[in-house]
């Protein structure tokens, strides 16, 4: 699978794929060529997943305003209020 295809996938899909390849390699008795192919594929997924986690900037939280637009907001900017 090409890296580009992997980048487009959801993180969860990637993790599931990774899990199933690892299990397949561990349980099956695929021949060497196939194993190496799967191994490379899994390593590619590992890399994409790690990159997604490591390189992703911290997401800015949004709040839906009454006019229907989203506005950035940060929890720590606000005074903490006690629940009534």
């Amino acid at each position, binding site marked *: 699978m090409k890296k580009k295809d992997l980048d487009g996938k*959801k*993180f*969860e899909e990637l*993790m599931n794929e*990774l*899990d199933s*390849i*690892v299990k397949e*390699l*561990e349980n099956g008795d695929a021949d*060497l060529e196939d*194993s*190496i192919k799967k*191994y490379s594929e*899994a*390593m590619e997924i*590992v890399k994409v*997943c*790690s990159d*997604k*986690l490591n390189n*992703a900037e*911290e*997401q*800015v*939280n*949004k*709040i*839906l305003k009454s006019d229907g637009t*989203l506005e950035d*907001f940060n*929890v*720590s900017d*606000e005074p*903490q*209020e*006690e*629940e*009534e």
Partner: protein
Amino acid sequence: MQDEIKYYSVSQYNESIRRFIDSVPECHDVHIKGEISNFKGATRGHLYFTLKDEESRINAVMFKSAADKLEFTPKDGDKVLIDGRISVYTVSGTYQVYCDRMVPDGRGDLLKKLEELKKKLEKEGLFDAAHKRPIPKYPMHIGVVTAPNKAAKSDIISTIKRRFPVCQVILFPAIVQGENAKDSIVSMIREANDPKYNLDTLIVGRGGGSIEDLWAFNEEDVARAIYNSRVPVISAVGHEVDFTIADFVADLRAPTPTGAAEMAVPNMSDLINTINNYQIRLNENIYNKIKLLRKELNNYKTSYVLSNPLATFEIKSQKLDSYIDRLNMYINNKITLDKTKLEHIKTNHILMHPEELFIKNKNSIELYINKLKLLNPLNVLSKGYSLVNDNGNLVKSINDVKINDELNIRVLDGYIISNVKGVDKK
């Protein structure tokens, strides 16, 4: 001294206590909540019962004039709010509450409504496990429907940020208590389902409060909005002990808002560990596989045949030799055998002395000749016998001839011609 002590009757005492109590303003206007027990409706329309809570009880009476105004029929177990006064019933020397007004305790009423709604929705299948969608394990976009200025919101958001900072939170501010709460929550759940937000998970909830405060999450409309949500919903209402309808219908119930955030997202470091672990397993697997194959390969390499490539040839060549040997031996045997036979034939007596065979044959020929000589009819003639022919036929009887036939008589040295003169039978 005895004369100085004044004794009062029971009635007098009870009466004075009643008067004392009636003079206390706090007893004129009391508001009590409790549960009805030992309820008795007297024939004349007065109601007698005991009002209790977990620890104590008080007798209560409601006279017909007040009872007629009741909007419900009280019974044992009802939780009620009572307005009235406290006074003493002198006959039995007990104090009791005289009820002017009594209404069902709203909370008890709410709980009853809640039970009914719960049963109805359960029957409809809204709580069925089959309808529960799995909560995505690694959500990148989470929606939160809650009050915008409450601790619950910051609990949820800060927990998500701490555990899984790559996840974006979109807050859908809702009114979470009071009259407008129900509609506000429903419209925000619907809004959050708009595909443009691309949400993986939706957290719906609020912090702790009284049952009245949490009530919006027991509303049927809210339950249905959660049920119909395309995005999987985690409910997070109040504290651990609080269960609302929203909790039953949600795909996952969290005990608290913070708990919801913890359930919604993985811990980043755990996740990185998981990925590293996969990597380790992959490497180990492929390493072991290659190691195993290398070992197998080595086994082949060191095998006798591969390390002595001529060996197979040698074995075959050896076999061929043995065939050749066997063939040679066979042929030789055969030749020897035939030679022996030939020698044997060669040494045969006859072959060694062929003249014997000639002599032997000559002798037997002579024997035959002699035999033939004996049989030669001419030999008989030499002894004086003769052969008589009549016109070419050998005469053996008198019947073979007629008178005057010319007979040809063969004797040893010639023929005698004669005529038949007569025959004489012997």
